[in-house]
C-alpha cells in the first residue's frame, strides 16, 4: 500500500454517527412494533367478525331448512287428515248405498 492509499485510508476513517441517531432508530422501531401489534389486532378482529358472520349465515340457513321441513311435515299431516276424513266419508257412503240396494231388493 503506497502513501496515497495510506492517506486515503486516513481520510476514510469512520465518522461518528449523529448523536440522536440511535434514539431515532429506537423510537421508529417502537412505533413500527406498535403499528404491527395494531395491525395484528385488527386482523384478528376481522377474522373473529368473519367467523361470527359465517356462523350466523350458517345458522340462518339451517334454521330456514328446519322451518321448511317442519312446514312440509305439517302440510303432509293435514293432507293425510283430509284423506282420512274423505276415506271415512266414502266408506259411510258405500255402506249407505249397499244398505239402500239391499232394501230395494
Amino acid at each position, binding site marked *: 500500500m503506497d502513501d*496515497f492509499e495510506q492517506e486515503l485510508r*486516513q481520510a476514510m476513517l469512520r*465518522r461518528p454517527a449523529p448523536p440522536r441517531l440511535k434514539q431515532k432508530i429506537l423510537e421508529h422501531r417502537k412505533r413500527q412494533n406498535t403499528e404491527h401489534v395494531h395491525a395484528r389486532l385488527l386482523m384478528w378482529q376481522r377474522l373473529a367478525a368473519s367467523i361470527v358472520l359465517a356462523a350466523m349465515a350458517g345458522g340462518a340457513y339451517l334454521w330456514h331448512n328446519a322451518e321448511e321441513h317442519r312446514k312440509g311435515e305439517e302440510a303432509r299431516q293435514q293432507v293425510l287428515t283430509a284423506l282420512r276424513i274423505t276415506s271415512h266419508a266414502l266408506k259411510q257412503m258405500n255402506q249407505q248405498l249397499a244398505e239402500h240396494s239391499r232394501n230395494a231388493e
Partner: protein
Amino acid sequence: MARDWQPDFEQLVNEHQSMVFSLALRMAGDRGLAEEIAQDVFLALDNSLRKIESPLHALAWLRRVTMSRSADALRRRKVRAMDLWVEVDEHHGAQVEEHSSPLATRLERLLATLPETQRAALVLRYQEDMTPAEIAEALDAPLATVKSHLQRGLKLLRSKATCQLREYIRGV
C-alpha cells in the same frame, strides 16, 4: 438447532451505527439522507434479527444492506454525486469539517465524483478494510469486476488528486 449467540438489537445499533452511517454518508453524500438510510437499515435488521446467526454475520449483513439501500436511495434521487457534495458544503459543511482534516475532506469530495460502483468498492476497501473477495460478496458482484472497479477507481482518484491536491499528498 439452538444458537449460542442471541442478538441484542440495541447493542448492535451501538456497535455498528458509526459504520452504517459512514458508509451511507460516503455513498449518498448527504447527512440527512445517510441518517434516513441508517434508520432504514437498522429497522430492516430488526425485522431480520431471527436470521442473524453471529456478530460477524450481523456485520456482513449490515454492510451489504447499507450498500444496497444507499444505491437504491441514489437511484431514487437521481442526483449526481457532485451536486450532492455541493449540498453537503452548503448545509453540513461545518459538521464535516469538524471531524476531519482539510485533506480528508478534499479526498472525500473527490471520491464523491467517482462513478457509484467504483466509489462503493473504494469505500468498502478503505473505510472497512475489506478484501476484494469480501467486497464482491457484499456488493453481490463478480470478483473480477470488483478488482477492476478498485483499480480504475483508485487510478481515477489518484489522477484527480494529482491535479487538485498536489500540495497535500506526497505519494501522487
